[in-house]
């Protein structure tokens, strides 16, 4: 700072010696620029004498790394000034908003005093996270890299997997207040144009001040925003995103957001992990079945416990009923309250575990597992059979690879618990009918959410609950309605 002060005084003295029309004009412009940028506190002004006279460079200190500034601006400016004229883009001096946006976006502005010209160079080099492995969608087999919060890094991770000249990305500026970049990726000769137009239209209609993560954007461009089900696939894995791109889907990235969203998608795809394609087809099929039927089990286990105990004790064989009643003999609560109590405890445990610092988090395991599990049974608050059932259904709810779906399954379970609590098996079946009616009415970018149950193509069935050997999976999915087979 001190250095800068000395320099400016020197320059000022120089001007004072021989004040010309140009120098006065330049001085006033710099003053005006300072005023415009006065609320960008880390904006740095530097005057550098060059062959073409004095040049003031302006940049934001936090968005531009010193080395980048040196390489891109200062060295060419002092040695090969013609390079600057070739690379830089001119900026209108009168358009204040544009100037602020440039500085805020990490550009460096160069003001030539003699020619009264303003140029801009992209020097954006804000500190970014390195590429690490994913914590949320980890797999045993397969590449371990995950997206970061930097849009350019993410796109480069995809581009290095798909070396196809048809891979396009279209940028948009979004957020009425925050003005950040999103990028729509697709392969031009594969993507369904109708889907693409729908998505673009929806994105253009979005008016929201700030999106801090892509999941917020996702909620505002869904077909049915009121539904508990996510209608876009969301992933932080470049391999899975690339695979969907090659299937003809559309991917949206957002700056400062780790995940990318994929559309259109289906209910079933929420249960597909990219690892299924790395595993042998036999094991992959088994795991897929587990995840898919696990979803229905997790929403059915505890409600069935309630309806069997409250409404239909005759449903169970005598010995099993005896067992159940024995384990419940000390429990004063009715089954509905008992189930709600223990389900909510699990929910609290999960929430506390995810909010707590990692070092404290281990305690939660001990508190949850031992104290609540065993002690609640001993204290006669819940039956031990219920503890087993709730534990199983909690584990099953974490099977879907998409975390949003796992959350949904937990929410839907409460609907089932209440309907079983009031109307027994009949209520459960009504809730089941509602679930299916709802799923069948959902669309993702205009295509039915329940594919491949309602297959658009017969070959879709080869890659559904059973994952056929790789040789059979050459065709693209019917849901993407790709231009090529």
């Amino acid at each position: 700072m001190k250095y800068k002060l000395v320099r400016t005084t020197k320059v000022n003295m120089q001007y004072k010696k021989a004040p010309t029309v140009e120098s006065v004009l330049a001085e006033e412009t710099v003053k005006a620029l300072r005023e415009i940028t006065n609320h960008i506190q880390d904006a740095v002004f530097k005057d550098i004498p060059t062959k073409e006279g004095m040049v003031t460079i302006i940049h934001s200190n936090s968005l531009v790394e010193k080395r980048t500034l040196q390489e891109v601006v200062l060295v060419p400016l002092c040695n090969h000034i013609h390079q600057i004229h070739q690379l830089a883009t001119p900026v209108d001096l009168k358009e204040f908003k544009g100037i602020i946006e440039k500085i805020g976006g990490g550009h460096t502005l160069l003001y030539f005093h003699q020619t009264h010209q303003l140029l801009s160079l992209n020097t954006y080099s804000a500190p970014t996270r390195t590429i690490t492995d994913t914590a949320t969608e980890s797999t045993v087999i397969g590449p371990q890299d995950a997206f970061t919060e930097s849009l350019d890094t993410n796109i480069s991770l995809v581009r290095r997997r798909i070396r196809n000249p048809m891979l396009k990305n279209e940028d948009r500026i979004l957020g009425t207040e925050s003005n950040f970049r999103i990028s729509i990726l697709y392969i031009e000769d594969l993507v369904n144009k109708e889907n693409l137009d729908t998505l673009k239209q929806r994105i253009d209609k979005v008016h929201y001040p700030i999106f801090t993560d892509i999941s917020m954007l996702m909620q505002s461009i869904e077909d049915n925003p009121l539904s508990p089900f996510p209608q876009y696939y969301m992933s932080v894995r470049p391999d899975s995103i690339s695979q969907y791109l090659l299937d003809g889907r559309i991917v949206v990235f957002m700056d400062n957001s780790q995940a990318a969203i994929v559309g259109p998608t289906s209910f079933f795809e929420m249960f597909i992990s990219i690892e299924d394609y790395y595993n042998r087809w036999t094991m992959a099929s088994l795991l897929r079945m587990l995840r898919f039927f696990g979803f229905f089990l997790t929403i059915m286990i505890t409600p069935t416990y309630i309806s069997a105990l409250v409404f239909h004790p005759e449903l169970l064989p005598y010995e099993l009923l005896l067992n159940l009643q024995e384990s419940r003999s000390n429990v004063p609560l009715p089954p509905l309250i008992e189930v709600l109590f223990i389900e909510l405890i699990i929910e609290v445990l999960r929430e506390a575990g995810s909010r707590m610092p990692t070092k404290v988090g281990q305690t939660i395991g001990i508190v949850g597992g031992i104290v609540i599990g065993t002690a609640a049974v001993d204290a006669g608050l819940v039956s031990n059979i219920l503890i087993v059932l709730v534990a199983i259904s909690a584990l099953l709810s974490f099977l879907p690879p998409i975390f949003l779906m796992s959350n949904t399954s937990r929410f839907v379970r409460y609907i089932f618990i209440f309907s079983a609590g009031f109307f027994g098996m009949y209520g459960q079946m009504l809730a089941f009918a509602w679930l299916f009616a709802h799923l069948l009415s959902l669309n993702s970018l205009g295509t039915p959410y329940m594919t491949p149950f309602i297959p658009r193509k017969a070959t879709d069935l080869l890659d559904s609950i059973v994952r056929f050997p790789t040789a059979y999976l050459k065709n693209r999915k019917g849901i993407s309605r790709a231009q090529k087979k």
Partner: protein
Amino acid sequence: MSTHTKKILNGYHVVFLAQSAMIGSGILTLPRELSSVGYSQTFLPILFGVFASLTLWPMVWLNLKYPNENLFRINEILLGKGLGKILNVLIILQFTLFIAGIINKYMHLIQSTALPEQTITKPVLLFLLLLIYIVNGGIKSIARFCMLTFFLTIGIFYFTYWAVQKGDFSHLFPLFNFNGKELFEAMGKGYLAVLGYGAIMFYFPYIVDQKKAFKHVLTGIWISISLCFITVLISVMYFSEWQLKHIEFSILNLLKSGELSFVERFDIIGVTLWVFLILTTVAVYLWSAKEGIVSLFSKEKKYYIYVLTAIVFLIVRIPFPQEFQDKFFTTVNYIAYFLIVWPSFLSIIYLLRKKQVQP
């Protein structure tokens, strides 16, 4: 002239719409309705299938003459506005009562097996809310729901395995030990179980491939007929003639014969799962009734469905004595036969007035 030009139903939709509209509450009591002919009832469903195929033909023929109109509009075109509208009101009324009849029958079954300690008010309300939700999705949603229902409920048949095992094959020998009157009675009562394919006349304008619609509906009809046939076949094998006459819901007893180590009474799961089948049937009828009101007022309004459902709820919940209810709903059901033969009359009228009523 017509507002229904959007074609949305493909072949599969049509097959399962026809199939699901037929399988509702009727099949639950089918063996008892047919019991007047005793063990010879086995072949009756096949006869029904032939009848259904024959009566389907004039329906599709008439619809093909007016590819963009449903039966309500065709009535108005062929009979003139006044007479057509009066007839349409009657059809809508019949549908509403028919829906109420189906729900009433099913809810009493639910009350007697699954929810013996509750009144049916709340379960009926919940059912109707779900019904509104499904019908509001439009005919395509209903069709999708029908497809799913078929695959979800077809598994129930597995649980008749024990009944087949315990049954007596010799019951199936055709003895023809009945007279014409008994046959007529059995047909009159039993045919109700396979009504519902007539709804084609209302969703026909939405079908994409209308030329093939006949084939698709026929496929649906024969799927349902074979389900009825299997049900009757197993019932005949499992029950005695006396039982056939006196057990109301014979399917339940078939399911009860199941012996699994972890589920004692599978019939409760079966009966509650049956709600899917009831929902599909009723949804198709409610949607058709709604279309009727739309054609009556020539305006599409959301609240028609709510009004219809409210009426259905009132009919189901009016505290009439059980005997009266039974009689009432049976009479209403018999009127449904009218709808099956009506297209044949209309076809004749069409041929007579061909020149005046060109679409």
